[in-house]
């Protein structure tokens, strides 16, 4: 399936890029991640437990970053394999400075899904993919906000990496109640059978 879209980040391009380089943010943006190991600057590996609604599965993931042009663009190649099947995606990501302090992120990619997931999950895949992407960007928005606030020296906004239990517990989204709190932004994530979306985020974070 084709995946494409865009998202506006409220921050300058370099900050967006830098945010994604922060390993902590990287970890938080990969829901269900038990571990994310950096093999080298271009390659990452990790195990992910994913849950969405009643559906869940474990996957082992590989990520590769290619065609980097800082701070403009790069390509992510993601692969995840597990009992429910596999997903393999390739996405081109572009960061555009809008000139008003915001950054437009455009992504376009292609995801191949196979195994049980593809053969019995067709009805779910589209809506789940969209839901995940939506959540992923909301998460990144919070991460960026936290970093900018910290940098600006205002009251420290703790961006706490969700614990394993919280990841595993990430079935329900508590955004509504969590968003307005200043003290601690509690992140609860949707877990996703589509690793690629997460990985796209992971890649952004890898720099």
């Amino acid at each position: 399936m084709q995946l494409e879209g865009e998202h506006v980040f409220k921050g300058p391009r370099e900050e967006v890029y830098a945010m994604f380089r922060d390993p902590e943010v990287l970890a938080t943006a990969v829901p269900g991640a038990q571990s994310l190991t950096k093999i080298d600057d271009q390659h990452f590996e990790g195990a992910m437990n994913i849950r969405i609604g009643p559906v869940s599965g474990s996957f082992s993931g590989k990520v590769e970053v290619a065609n980097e042009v800082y701070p403009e663009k790069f390509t992510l190649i993601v692969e995840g394999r597990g009992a429910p099947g596999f997903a393999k995606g390739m996405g081109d990501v572009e960061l555009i400075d809008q000139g008003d302090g915001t950054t437009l992120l455009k992504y376009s990619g292609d995801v191949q899904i196979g195994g049980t997931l593809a053969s019995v999950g067709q009805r779910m895949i589209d809506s789940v993919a969209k839901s995940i992407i939506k959540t992923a960007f909301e998460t990144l928005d919070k991460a960026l906000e936290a970093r900018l606030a910290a940098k600006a020296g205002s009251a420290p906004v703790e961006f706490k990496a969700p614990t394993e239990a919280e990841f595993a517990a990430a079935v329900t989204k508590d955004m509504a109640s969590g968003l307005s709190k200043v003290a601690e932004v509690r992140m609860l994530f949707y877990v996703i059978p589509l690793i690629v979306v997460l990985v796209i985020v992971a890649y952004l974070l890898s720099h």
Partner: protein
Amino acid sequence: MKPIPFEYFAPTSTEEALEHLANLGYNGKVLAGGQSLIPAMNFRMARPGALVDLNGIPELAYIKPTADGGLAIGTMTRDSKVEHSPEVAQRFPLLLEVMPNIAHPQIRNRGTFGGSIAHADPAGQLPAISIVLNANLKVLKKGGERWVKAEEFFLGPFMTVLEPEEMLAEVVLPGLPPHTGSSYQQVSRQKGGYSLAAVASVVTLDTAGKCTSARMVMISVGDVPILSEAATRILVGQKPTPEAIAEVAEIAASKEIDPGTDIHATAEYRRHLVRVLVRRSLSTAFERAAK
């Protein structure tokens, strides 16, 4: 197609069920009719470590009239009971119109009203109906209870505000005022099959024929059932005209929904269906309201 090993609990009271859910947390899952959960478990797509079976708790199944002319429906009430209930037929003809489209009689004999809502399948009818009928949902957990409006209950595909230790216990449908009409329209490839798109409307007129309420919800065209804001904005406060209805249909189809393309239908076709079905649903609902 066999599930992973799981523990099985069969409580005989609501308290007992809530106790289990509190202990199991993310590892536990409520088993109601099982018509959606068990296939997912057999595919090993769903892997709960434990099931808390509510089928042995008769106090969770009931259809009780409420003082405002509505109904309180216990979560374990079988779909077929709702389908054949005279109170439902009288107070919520929309349900009578929808139920025969939910799979087949055999499935409806086991599937439950609350279970379908808690499952939150984007293509499911009952989540959408709970929204269009403005339902209030009673959510229980050990030592606590809260109420959630149906409009706020659904978060995404197969995702609701229910925490792992919580269960949906009751669906309260508020009574409908006089001169209320409703209509359910769907297109599905098989009778009883998943819809490619569906629309449910509930509209109310005042004695002068002006619309006082227009709730319209669209199914299978987004990750949750979509309650149309355009319907309320454009139709409330004036007499319903074909032009106004067409305007609502056009806005709903082009701006309010986010249909996907899959092996059964393209997004464009689904948009087209919404355009047609919104028009048919609202027109029919208004005709019925005027009677």
